[in-house]
């Protein structure tokens, strides 16, 4: 599917918003405005934007703890996400979830899940509901390479295939589960997709996760297959996080040459190069400026928002 210039600029803008949002989050963390764990998505933007852009409104998303990029790509306003990071009442979870648990059911964004692989069974259940109700909602389930080694992962591959559930599994393989290289943790090394198709009878593809177009094309193809009633699809998107595992991680286990080689493949630069011939430089400058303003607004919104009322803390433990 060919994207026109307007659409391409929108895509580029989403990726830039994610990058600048994450840079802002790091600054705000250092200012003490954000606490707890903060996992930065920078470097992986092409996956969130390429994959989520292919979804329809009714489709569901479940994500992991590195979830800001997915939330932004789904159209959750950066104000609400930043306010959540600040622990404020106007955050998407009213300040109860923080960075790792962004949720907005109005966008069918069912959450970031912070226990590795814990979101996979949720995706299975959402898929069961979709099948039961005979609508053609697709469930897009993001997870990292660390999740692949959890027992739940394998239970869910089996169930999704056995019951032909409409789940698109997207493995964001950034080669490290926290500080451990995938070569030290996965028997098949980095090519996880090779260990999916055969045993689980789930079609699986590997894609360059730094290339927006490759991600989008593969996801569109996968969704077409899923909507045809063929059951799940598995995409392994090869990528790299430019920052440490979390903000507390100086990332000393990765050598500079390796990090630099991936920064050369920056998905935003990749997209900019791709559209360089289109003479959109002025538009790109405009996007950069608009985004800077948007992030400033998000910071201000989060700063100005109030902390949750203490009296509200008992609400929703259980529902009446």
């Amino acid at each position, binding site marked *: 599917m060919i994207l026109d210039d307007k659409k391409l600029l929108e895509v580029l803008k989403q990726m830039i918003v994610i990058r600048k949002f994450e840079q802002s989050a790091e600054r705000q963390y250092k200012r003490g405005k954000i606490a707890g764990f903060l996992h930065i998505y920078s470097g992986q933007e092409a996956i969130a934007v390429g994959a989520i852009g292919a979804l329809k409104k009714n489709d569901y998303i479940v994500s992991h703890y590195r979830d800001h990029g997915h939330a932004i790509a789904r159209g959750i306003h950066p104000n609400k996400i930043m306010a959540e990071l600040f622990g404020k009442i106007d955050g998407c979870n009213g300040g109860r979830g923080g960075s790792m648990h962004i*949720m907005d*059911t109005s966008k069918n964004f069912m959450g970031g899940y912070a226990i590795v692989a814990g979101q996979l069974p949720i995706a299975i*259940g*959402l898929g*069961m509901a979709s099948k039961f109700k005979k609508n053609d909602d697709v469930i897009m389930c993001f997870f990292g390479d660390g999740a692949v080694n959890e027992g739940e992962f394998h239970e869910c591959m089996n169930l999704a295939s056995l019951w032909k559930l409409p789940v698109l599994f997207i493995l964001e393989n950034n080669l490290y589960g926290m500080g451990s290289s995938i070569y030290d943790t996965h028997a098949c090394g980095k090519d996880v997709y090779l260990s999916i198709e055969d045993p689980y009878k789930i079609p699986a593809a590997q894609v360059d996760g730094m290339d927006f177009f490759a991600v989008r094309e593969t996801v569109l193809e996968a969704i077409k297959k899923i909507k045809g009633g063929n059951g799940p699809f598995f995409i392994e998107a090869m990528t790299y996080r430019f920052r440490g595992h979390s903000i507390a991680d100086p990332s000393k286990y990765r050598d500079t040459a390796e990090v630099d080689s991936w920064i050369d493949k920056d998905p935003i630069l990749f997209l900019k190069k791709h559209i360089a011939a289109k003479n959109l430089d002025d538009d790109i400058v405009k996007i950069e400026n608009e985004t800077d303003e948007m992030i400033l607004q998000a910071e201000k919104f989060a700063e100005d928002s109030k902390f949750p009322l203490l009296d509200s803390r008992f609400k929703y*433990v259980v529902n009446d």
Partner: protein
Amino acid sequence: MLLTIRESISIALKEALNNNKNCFMMGEDIAGYGGAYSITKGFLEEFGKDRIIDTPISESAIVGAACGAAMAGMKPIVEIMSINFTLLAIDQIVNNIAKLSYLSNGQIKVPLIIRTVTGGGGQLSSTHSQSLEHWYASIPGLTVVTPSNAYDALGLFRTSVKSQNPILFIEHGMIYRNKNEVPDDYYEIPFGRANISLVGEDITIISYSKMSCVALEVSDILKKEFNVSCDVIDLRTLSPLDSESIINSVKKTGKAVIIEEAHKTGGFAGELIAIIQEACFDYLDSPIIRICSEDIPIPYSRKLEDSIIPNTNFAVSEISQKFNLKKLTY
């Protein structure tokens, strides 16, 4: 009508399936096999394979999937064959199911029921005989239901079906065949309301699940042999907990006994004792007695197992000795 607990749960499940088209069941061997405890016998034929779903032995995925389905507006009822097997799904229960309503600031609801079977006494040895329901009662967000008879099981299950919250409905494997009179007319039993199954004056006995049956036998003997009358409180739900009934009773009797099947250390009895001493310190006229399973894994051999899990005779002897009760002489 006279019903066993097994029959009453089966009736409640059929009601749920008939009344809500989005209600479905899943679990290991619940369809073709009819359930390990025969609760769902004939369900497959009656409701079809889309609603009575046999699953692989993948507890975590099953329970997590029920969570996901509930989030999308379904009413899943999951059967986990034994509470010991819920340990394979405990991450989903504790980190997702219990948390999502709160974490999402009320955006997400998880109205599911997990049915499972607790307790020892069946010579199944240590990995299949534990009573772990109080673990779940310590997690905010979970409702823990522990019926001891057919009347309560039916009424509490109906309330579970209507609830917007995740329910752990915990059945005891050794009392499924116990019979009770159950009214034909529809009724429900609210959560957090204990059953005062016997009214007395001298001692308060608190228990739940199978030990509530033991408590009634104990109170019977105490009356006949010691002329001591007991308030017998069946908690029915551990969370929410009916502290009020406990406190009112202990203020009246001044003596409290807790009979529980879980191991003594870290058991629910400790929690109940804390509640009683916080609220009734000045009313107590002797130390609170707790009668629990010993702190050792439940062994296979009959006599060994019997020596560890509380039973009627042991409870009577503990209570009469510690409260220094005088046996009636005729």
